[in-house]
């Protein structure tokens, strides 16, 4: 008899939703009663019966719970948005390598995020906050499409006090007077900022944003081997078997999703 024991890597475990926090019209953060040890940058495969599975990155750093910031874009994420506090989801993981935080000890850290790519960076920020004396200066550059697309607004006040927080939006809708901050690309903010060339960089966002941000960083003297980027790919199994996320001979789910830029820049389709 084959049992659905934990030895089977495809079988998920059941976890309770502790809290749901609405972020935007299509995005919410689910706090899950999930106490498995994890690192920022790793992800879980969320499994919903009858619908399927999808990889969701970890947007927190805690022994008590896992925050998953989920945008309603596919079958599983749509179904997840139908779940409330007290409901259950199934998940397996954590998978992937995560950010090598120990390699960044004593360095200044720059975090660059775009859109939902800011979710794993929130995990990294919470890690840094918990181990504050291990890191140098922290600069955050977050970009979103519109002011109403901003995620984790409730954290901005705290981050602004503790770190150097820079926010921008691509566009402001006509007549929207609520946003008084920066308008334009993240790269414009990086170009203006004073940056220590020995900083380590953690970056996650749309490929275009990462490409141009990389140019700005190079101009500031940041070395490729100090930049860690996350790749987005279709993943199905999460354990390096199904082949969907293979890129340049590496499985993004198993060998990544975090890659050092000096290696990542040679990984092309």
């Amino acid at each position, binding site marked *: 008899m084959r049992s659905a024991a934990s030895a089977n890597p495809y079988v998920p475990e059941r976890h309770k939703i502790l809290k749901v926090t609405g972020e935007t019209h299509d995005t919410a953060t689910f706090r899950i009663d999930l106490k498995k040890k994890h690192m920022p940058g790793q992800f879980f495969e969320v499994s919903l*019966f009858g619908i399927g599975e999808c990889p969701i990155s970890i947007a927190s750093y805690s022994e008590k719970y896992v925050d998953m910031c989920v945008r309603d874009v596919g079958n599983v*994420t749509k179904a997840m948005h139908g779940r409330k506090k007290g409901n259950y989801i199934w998940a397996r993981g954590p998978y992937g390598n995560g950010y090598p935080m120990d390699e960044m000890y004593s360095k200044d850290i720059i975090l660059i995020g775009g859109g939902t790519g800011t979710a794993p960076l929130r995990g990294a920020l919470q890690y840094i906050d918990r181990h504050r004396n291990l890191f140098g200066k922290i600069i955050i550059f977050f970009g979103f499409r519109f002011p109403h697309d901003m995620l984790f607004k409730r954290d901005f006040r705290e981050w602004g006090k503790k770190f150097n927080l820079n926010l921008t939006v691509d566009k402001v809708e006509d007549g929207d007077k609520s946003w008084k901050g920066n308008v334009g690309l993240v790269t414009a903010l990086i170009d203006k900022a004073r940056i220590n060339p020995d900083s380590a960089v953690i970056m996650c966002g749309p490929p275009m944003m990462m490409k141009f941000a990389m140019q700005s960083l190079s101009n500031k003297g940041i070395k490729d081997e100090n930049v860690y980027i996350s790749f987005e790919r279709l993943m199905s199994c999460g354990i390096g078997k199904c082949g*969907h996320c293979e890129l340049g001979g590496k499985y993004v789910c198993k060998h990544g999703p975090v890659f050092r830029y000096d290696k990542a820049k040679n990984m092309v389709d």
Partner: protein
Amino acid sequence: MHLLKKGDFGKFVESLISRHEVIAPVKTDIVRFKVLEKGDGAEGKVVFDSPLYSAKEFFLPIKEPFYYFKKGKICESMEDGKNARKRIFFMNRCDINGVHRNDLILLDDPVDPYYREKRDNAILVEIPCVQSKRCSCVDIGLIDCYDLRIIDPGQDNPNYVLDAATEKGRHMIKEMYLSASYLPKQDIPSHQARNIAAENKEVWEDYGKDCFSCSACTAVCPTCTCFTIDGFMKLNGEEGHLYRELASCQLPEFTKVAGGFVFRKDRGSRGKQRIHCKFQYFREKYGHNRCVGCGRCNEACPVSINIFEYFGRLK
């Protein structure tokens, strides 16, 4: 080492059928892998040939349920015990190597339990290779990975030699294998292990022009194991199962992420992925070419893309 009279091969097969599930290439309307039934041992039914579709589906069914769920609980698989019977496979050297390549990825940590169950129950018997026209395995790096091997020492010899996979036997057979007349006389490009350059733009452009993305190559390939996991729910909304379905890197959906973006949009880049996977990536990870040289993809391709030709063109 044992000798088996060629005239007794049918009896040998029948005796296996009575005790185990035996899967072998059988001549029906076409040659295909079939679970043998009583009487299939008769002369001429089991053929030493390589069917266009490999025996992959016995290890990786096109659709395979994982675990079942009912009323919010995961149940043990309902397939339990179904595969407990030993299965004996009669396959060519290339196909047995194909199974070995699939072992490397699916039995790598963490082990795929669904594959393992079927693999543990399989006995691989290597049959004498007939070198069909499409094959090209000579320098691709095939290794001995059979459990038992049937050797035909020559047409005028009345016996087959049966060799269990011991070091001694392996060594002896290796010598026989090379001195026998199995080596093909076709002129084929070399596909020995070598590193493929990142820049081969024109080759992939040509591939993109030729290929029309039907994915027949990956369907017939004995070492294409990529799959997609999906969920199924019965209409009662309470029970269903999670399953995997074989997928193809030659289709655009393979790299489509939520939101609709496709990473490998053009056929050339998908061809690059396929050929790199077979001759570069897998070797980097597991030390072998993933391609076993059976040539099925070349035969199945409606526009005659030849994987060896393309590999030969690469810098």
